[in-house]
């Protein structure tokens, strides 16, 4: 780990907080027989400690965007800066959870081996490695599965291993590509809350791609809405729900219901012919004034009455 971790952020304190990530005019065109421009000029900043959710129509370029941010592919235009420095090569304190979680686990390594894998090259001493693996697997509720191999796990369990592998690095910047797509609703809620706790304790900056509008509002400090491919930023909506979120209470709140409606409308609009803002829309100039929420909108937003277990995982965590 580098010593460049940023100071803890207090929500809404604005100006003094350093930028973790600055993305300017990022473009990417896949070359080959089928040329395709997946990202068409994306600009946004991410403050340290912020949790940014990214939503957009399927195939618009969300995974491509994350790959560019992680330097896994070289963008064809624009710039990505992390800690103020232009990014060359995969940054030290970054971890990625891939969308294809099943294909991203090493089949010849046990669950423990997979989670420990990134730590081995990070020169973490063996004792601490073991302890971290144990702790992180406990967070995601996989304590009993340490010695199993990926083919012996269900899809949801594999996904949690992939999440644990990224969390075990204790990254400063965590990129997650639809990380909760294939777990059941209950586990999903638990993992969402786990993510919020980890963020609070480790002060991790998180970019999370999701196709679930509710999830984006529930988790995010802000939501970036992308247009159809080539992806541009349609809107950058702050989520004023405070730091304490509750699976039932938060989802019933007026702000929540209003925001999810707004995003849904944008996605429907952005998915059509007209592309609001067009290419080159920057996130910096899009604001969002909240309008009053109509009654019927609130009615159909009734969350399922699920029992959310307040698991303890991240409590005993911080190192």
């Amino acid at each position, binding site marked *: 780990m580098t010593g460049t971790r940023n100071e803890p952020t207090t929500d809404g304190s604005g100006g003094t907080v350093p930028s973790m990530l600055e993305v300017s005019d990022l473009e990417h065109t896949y070359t080959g027989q089928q040329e395709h421009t997946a990202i068409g000029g994306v600009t946004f900043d991410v403050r340290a400690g912020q949790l940014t959710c990214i939503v957009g129509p399927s195939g618009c370029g969300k995974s491509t965007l994350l790959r560019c941010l992680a330097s896994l592919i070289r963008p064809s235009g624009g710039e990505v800066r992390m800690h103020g420095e232009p990014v060359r090569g*995969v940054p*030290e304190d970054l971890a990625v959870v891939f969308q294809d979680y099943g*294909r991203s686990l090493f089949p*010849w390594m046990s669950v423990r081996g997979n989670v420990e894998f*990134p730590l081995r090259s990070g020169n973490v001493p063996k004792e601490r490695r073991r302890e971290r693996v144990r702790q992180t697997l406990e967070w995601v509720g996989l304590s009993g599965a340490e010695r199993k*191999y990926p*083919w012996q796990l269900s899809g949801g369990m594999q996904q949690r291993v992939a999440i644990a592998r990224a969390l075990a690095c204790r990254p400063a910047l965590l990129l997650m590509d639809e990380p909760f797509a294939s777990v059941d609703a209950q586990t999903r809620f638990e993992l969402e809350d786990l993510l919020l706790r980890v963020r609070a304790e480790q002060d991790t900056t998180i970019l999370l791609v999701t196709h679930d509008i509710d999830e984006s509002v529930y988790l995010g400090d802000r939501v970036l809405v992308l247009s159809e491919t080539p992806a541009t930023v349609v809107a950058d909506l702050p989520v004023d729900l405070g730091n304490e979120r509750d699976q039932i209470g938060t989802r019933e709140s007026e702000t929540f219901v209003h925001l999810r409606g707004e995003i849904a409308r944008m996605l429907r609009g952005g998915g059509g012919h007209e592309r609001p803002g067009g290419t080159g829309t920057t996130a910096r100039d899009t604001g969002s004034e909240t309008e009053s929420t109509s009654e019927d909108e609130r009615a159909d937003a009734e969350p399922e009455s699920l029992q959310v277990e307040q698991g303890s995982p991240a409590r005993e965590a911080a190192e």
Partner: protein
Amino acid sequence: MRNAVRALIGVAVFLVLCEIVGRSGLAPQRYLPPPSIVLTELAELLGERDFLLDVVATVLAWLIALGICALVAVPAGLLLGSVPLLRTATTSLIEFLRPVPSVALIPLVVVVSAGSPSGKIFLACYAAVWPLLFNTIYSTGQLDEQLLESARAFRISRVQRILRIKLPHVVPFVFTGLRLAASTALIVLISVEMLNPGSGGIGSFIYVAGSGAGRMDQVLAGTLLAGVLGYLVNAGMSGAQRKWITWAPSGGTT
């Protein structure tokens, strides 16, 4: 367990049939001795120093040949599988060399190696290296891009990616390739030994026993032993594969 019993029953029935045919006089016993005589002969031979030296010579040559095959084919396969440029550059050479029957090279190699075991080891390698090489190249190419990308995301260097990602990925395929290589190598070794009796080994023993004294019981005893060795090595490697490669269903043997 049940399968083992079935297999043994099959062998026993076969031996009894052979015994009946041998004893019935359908074929002269001198040419086709019944299993009881062959087995007795084999037991006696296994007590003879000269015969044991022949067996050791063949087995040693075999193991050395397989070791060389693995040392050549696995790194070469990983490299050719990872670097498309190298692969296209070598394809035509490989496609030319591979179909050359190694038995056709025997006279050449016998002259060059002048009776030392290096000649037969070379020929065994030449014949056996291909399945191993192709298995390694092919399986390296089959490695999921997403796995390599994950490794890159964790800042694993290029060399480390070969050692820690590609190598473990190809191991089950290498095992399968080695099993194919083992039987090919044994066939070639014994053929070379028969055509070049001075080099020793089970093949020479069979040749001498058959051509001079016409001892068909000894010929069959030697043949039987070669078959048993081949079987044991194959079974041993399958077992090892199942035991060690715990991360793939049934050790990736299928």
